[in-house]
């Protein structure tokens, strides 16, 4: 029997997404086992809960690292994933990072981590492309002061300004703050063509709602931390027309029909935004082990680096920095309380 570690938050505010990813990995494992396992061995999983908190992530990662696992799939919160890189690096365990995509992960990677979600750089490129095409020249950026959203906000600002545009308002909100009126006023007084929220859906929903309530009429865009359908619950009708940059979620992936059905059957609910990536990540890892022909970490790492695998979320090949070679970002748009493809 071969063990696979899953590093995701299963408690705390991000628990739903973590659980969702864990379920997807388990689904993949079930399929692999049904098909005879890897190197003739059956797979099993161990979950490490990082709680989306760096300290807890270190504990969880150490637990996984000492549980005799062959590889790890997971990583949702960038802030919690960064300090685990050294642990898995020291223990020399291959780590497929399924969701976390801050560019700060790249320099901290000791070489055994592989990011299969497009990074912030790709997202910024997509965002700028979209804004430019839609006549936006002044952009307000709002982040939440955590590793992921600050990184995305900084990158956007830098590239946006280099492209000759302006950022008349660059704001930070604290997680869990319910009242955004002061920021809304600051944005309204700067009167930008668009507002870009780079953080998670929960607070994003509140911001969108309050922006619209206060009469802001420009465009509103959100990053891939807000691609959850929950956004519409929180923002209500104010989220109509909101644009989101995201990896394609399951319903927009033509190859994912079977996955959606299987997942829903196994878990009683539809897969969330990062389930497809987690599912692909597991299959990718299994393939790499198979290719390596042994559980030797160096061999698996080499196999991962050389992967060319097409999963339900598209093709996975890596850059020399172990990041996804292509950009997987698409533009979504809120319509009638759900995301639709904008392009």
């Amino acid at each position: 029997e071969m063990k696979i570690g899953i590093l995701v938050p299963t408690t705390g505010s991000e628990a739903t997404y973590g659980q969702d990813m864990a379920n997807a990995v388990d689904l993949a494992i079930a399929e692999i086992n049904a098909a005879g396992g890897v190197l003739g061995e059956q797979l099993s999983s161990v979950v490490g809960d990082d709680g989306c908190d760096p300290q807890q992530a270190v504990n969880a990662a150490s637990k996984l690292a000492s549980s005799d696992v062959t590889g790890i799939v997971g990583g949702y919160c960038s802030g919690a994933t960064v300090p685990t890189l050294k642990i898995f690096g020291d223990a020399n365990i291959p780590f497929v990072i399924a969701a976390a995509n801050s560019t700060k992960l790249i320099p901290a990677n000791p070489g055994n981590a592989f990011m299969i979600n497009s990074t912030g750089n790709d997202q910024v490129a997509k965002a700028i492309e979209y804004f430019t095409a839609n006549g936006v020249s002044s952009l307000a950026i709002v982040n939440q002061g955590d590793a992921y959203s600050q990184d995305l906000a900084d990158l956007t600002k830098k590239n946006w300004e280099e492209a000759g545009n302006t950022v008349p308002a660059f704001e930070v909100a604290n997680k869990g703050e319910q009242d955004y009126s002061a920021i809304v006023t600051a944005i309204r007084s700067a009167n930008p063509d668009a507002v870009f929220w780079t953080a998670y859906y929960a607070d994003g929903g509140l911001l969108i709602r309050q922006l619209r309530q206060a009469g802001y009429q420009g465009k509103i865009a959100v990053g891939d931390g807000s691609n959850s359908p929950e956004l519409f619950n929180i923002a209500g009708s104010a989220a109509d027309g909101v644009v989101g940059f995201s990896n394609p979620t399951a319903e927009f992936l033509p190859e994912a029909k079977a996955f959606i059905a299987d997942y829903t059957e196994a878990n009683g609910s539809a897969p969330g935004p990062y389930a497809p990536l987690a599912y692909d990540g597991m299959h990718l890892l299994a393939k790499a082990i198979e290719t390596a022909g042994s559980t030797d970490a160096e061999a698996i790492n080499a196999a991962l680096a050389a992967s060319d695998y097409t999963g339900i979320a598209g093709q996975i090949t890596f850059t020399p920095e172990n990041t996804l070679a292509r950009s997987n970002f698409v533009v979504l748009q809120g319509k009638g309380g759900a995301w639709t493809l904008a392009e």
Partner: protein
Amino acid sequence: MAQPRSNAFNNIIAQFNEPWKRYTAFAVIIALLLIAPISLGPYATVILTNALLYVVLALGLNVVVGYAGLLDLGYAAFFAVGAYTVGILTHTFGLNFWVTLPVAVGAAVVAGIVIGTPTLRLRSDYLAIVTLGFGEIVRFTARNLDITGGASGISGIQQPWLFGWHINTPFEFYYVFVVLAILAVIVSVRLQNSRLGRAWLYVRHDEDAAEAMGIDTVRVKLAAYVIGAIFGAIAGAFFAVNLGAISPESFSFQQSVLILMAVILGGMGKIPGVILGAFIVVLAPELLRDMGEFRLLLFAVGLLLVMLFRPSGIWPVRGK
């Protein structure tokens, strides 16, 4: 007070009143600490390392809260000062860790004096909010500045060398923290039994009477503050090189609260109690790891029950 309810534990502790029994107990504990990683494996080693880190932090906060009676809700700030000083100086400026360590201590002393001098005259509840505010100011500043790496913090901090030995693996760090914790205990014990240690108690029990006895209460309180800050900064420095990555999230209000919890849960002012408290706040959530969603709920309920049954902390009040 509500002590008689749990006499069994008191009785066990009372067994160790004789010095030779106590020293034997110490020896056994230290021996257990030394062999723990070998028998428990790497995961337990990391968790124990973390527990030892909290021992140092809690003993430091204990000087401030337990000895001098100053309620500090922002202790993580000093922890942060130590971690960031080392992080910035080694990572960004490439200095040797051992050179940056005294700088970190110096920075903590300065921070302690800067925040302590104007505010130590405040009554304890007001001091609580000032320290909370100070802690948040430090965290927000770390989050907003470039030199501190913003919200992502600093990663890739190099592990130190000691006489040609690269302290690198979790096991090695474990032993480093064993040494730190033992030093922290020794320093705490010596301080507690010193003139300064008694002065803290006097100030804590009756400030006016202490003044009347010729004790410069402001100075004595400041000393507690600064010494607490030094403990925190040293813990922070080693925390930074151990993890290799630091970020503002590690120095939040919740962190301060957790350390305070360790101090009070075990028994404020009592060194074995504080150590016990530190182990509990680190180990309990880990032991409950398999409870999934219910983990923190169970921890909270447990905490509540402990406080209700042992209002003065788990460790018994000194027997007379």
